[in-house]
């Protein structure tokens, strides 16, 4: 198996159809396929062990991904927002590398680390080819297609390995080939070093849905591209949707989203008020909430459009709360909730989410986390309700153990967030002589609002119980998020360190 099959099939079927639009320039499936073949020849000739891409989304990302696959080398895109020393440490782990990067970053690459070093435009020029030739991609079943460095909120980034069979398992199992209409276009605003950026390329090309790349997300540019490129589908992370809605509310302009049919989101917890506002604001759009991890080649559970509309304002609270769920597992994976002793739990029982299926890699360089039966512990806690909807309750590693009692930060954050004056909040565990760990809340207030710590503590005591009351409360201007909108709890803890 080789993921290049995805592009090969598209190029065989409709070579002249537009596959990709970047800065107004169009690239056909045939052209991308021919370029990927040319790239593969360059990569093989270079003797590099890895192909890396350090930069924003561009056509070079797509050519590099498939070129690497055809050459039988892992594609290891890097986060362009890292510092130079952080970047160099990762590049050293990819030695010897075929590196495609922007000029300003290239100047700082350590001597001798790269076998070949090119800018994106140079790489595209070197691989420009209109006529696909013959190229036999290696069909190594165990081959690594993509290596992603996880964001590393603790310690050095880990290298998650996604094999050809994992990624193809996801694509072939969830998407019908060439199922998109020719007028469909998907706006890709997630970066290429994120699993959502990789799966967007593979899924869109297999569905033959034109990709419109938005290298630098801003709400205004996102809305502009949606309109100008007649975007029909889009995927956003929660912070993006929050910012898009805030932008629409602030500018008071009705955006032109007439073409938009489907909006998917994932990559983190979507705040309920944002989903509800979006459902009201875009009544014609089909919403999908996707839950997935890097180690599972993207989506494993999905709350689909009908579920969103049914749950929205439903009188039965058990149906209404589904908006807060991540829907049901895909038909191609199995999901189980397990207790601390490893036993499989029943409906509505809170435990750790385990997943199994062809798309699940569960593997880092040098370490495989799946058990003998292929089950991968996600380290997410959650439960499945009587109707099969999966609800997540946060990362297990974030659970606070106060006096022997396990407390999920999410339940306390939810109560604090319900206060009218609270804009954002994060609850973490901090060391306590009395309890081992105790609760601390960093709170961002809405502008020109006064709220006392006592008031917030009383709210939690009233709605939950005294053990859930944050002992420490700090009011801060903003919470620390990474660029994908993931809360950096380690940095929140640091607020309380002094």
């Amino acid at each position, binding site marked *: *198996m080789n993921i290049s*099959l995805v592009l*090969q*099939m598209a190029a*065989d*079927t409709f070579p002249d159809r537009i596959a990709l639009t970047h800065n107004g320039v169009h690239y056909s499936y045939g052209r991308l396929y021919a370029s990927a073949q040319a790239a593969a020849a360059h990569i093989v000739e270079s003797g590099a062990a890895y192909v890396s891409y350090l930069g924003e989304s561009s056509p070079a990302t797509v050519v590099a991904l498939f070129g690497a696959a055809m050459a039988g080398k892992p594609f290891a895109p890097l986060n362009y927002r890292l510092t130079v020393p952080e970047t160099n440490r990762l590049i050293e782990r990819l030695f010897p590398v075929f590196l495609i990067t922007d000029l300003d970053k290239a100047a700082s690459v350590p001597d001798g680390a790269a076998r070949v070093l090119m800018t994106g435009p140079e790489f595209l020029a070197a691989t420009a080819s209109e006529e696909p030739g013959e190229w036999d991609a290696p*069909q190594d*079943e165990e081959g690594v297609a993509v290596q992603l460095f996880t964001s590393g909120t603790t310690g050095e980034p880990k290298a998650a390995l996604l094999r050809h*069979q994992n990624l193809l398992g996801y694509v*072939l199992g*969830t*998407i*019908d*080939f*060439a*199922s998109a209409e020719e007028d469909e276009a*998907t706006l890709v605003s997630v970066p290429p070093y994120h699993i*959502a950026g990789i*799966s*967007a390329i593979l*899924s*869109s090309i297999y*569905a033959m*849905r034109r990709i419109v790349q938005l290298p630098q997300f801003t709400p205004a540019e996102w809305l502009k591209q949606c309109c100008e490129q007649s975007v029909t*589908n889009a*995927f956003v992370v929660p912070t993006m949707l929050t910012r898009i809605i805030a932008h629409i509310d602030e500018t008071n302009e009705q955006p032109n989203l007439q073409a938009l049919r*489907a909006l*998917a989101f*994932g990559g983190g917890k979507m705040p309920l008020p944002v989903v509800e506002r979006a459902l009201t604001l875009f009544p014609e759009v*089909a919403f*999908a909430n*996707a839950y*997935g991890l890097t180690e599972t080649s*993207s*989506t494993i559970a*999905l709350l*689909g*459009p009908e579920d969103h509309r049914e749950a929205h304002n439903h009188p039965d609270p058990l149906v209404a709360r589904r908006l807060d769920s991540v829907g049901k597992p*895909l*038909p191609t994976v199995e999901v189980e909730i397990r207790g601390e002793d490893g036993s499989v739990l029943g409906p509505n029982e809170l435990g750790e989410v385990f997943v199994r299926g062809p798309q699940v890699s569960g593997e880092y360089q040098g370490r495989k986390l799946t058990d003998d039966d292929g089950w991968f512990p996600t380290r997410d806690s959650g439960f499945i309700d009587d109707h099969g909807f999966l609800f997540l309750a946060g990362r297990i590693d974030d659970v606070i153990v106060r006096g022997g009692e396990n407390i999920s930060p999410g339940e306390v954050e939810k109560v604090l967030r319900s206060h009218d004056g609270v804009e954002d909040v994060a609850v973490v565990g901090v060391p306590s002589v009395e309890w081992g760990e105790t609760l601390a809340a960093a709170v961002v207030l809405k502008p020109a609002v006064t709220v006392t710590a006592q008031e917030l503590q009383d709210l939690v005591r009233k709605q939950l119980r005294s053990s859930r009351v944050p002992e420490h409360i700090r009011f801060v201007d903003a919470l620390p998020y990474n660029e994908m909108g993931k809360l950096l709890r380690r940095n929140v803890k640091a607020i309380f360190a002094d």
Partner: protein
Amino acid sequence: MQLKAGTKLHSSVCDTDVMVIKGSGDVALTCGGAEMVTARTGAPGQIDPGFASGTAMGKRYQTDDGSVELLCIKPGKGTLAVHGVALEIKAAKALPSSD
């Protein structure tokens, strides 16, 4: 012939190429009435008119019991069959796009 997930097979009488999605062990897999091969050699053989309704690009074909599943990665004129029984197109799933 021996089937294994991920194997690419070719028709010996038409342009059809398939990839094995599911299936293992010794299976009599034919396209256009002739056994499929891992590599094409020589001139294509004669297509059996009883197995000439064709394959469609990107469609999945499976046996009744679902034990063998193939993905058509290049279409042709022959019909896919296991032990002489024509394979059916697997019904399309309707999953919303999530990426």
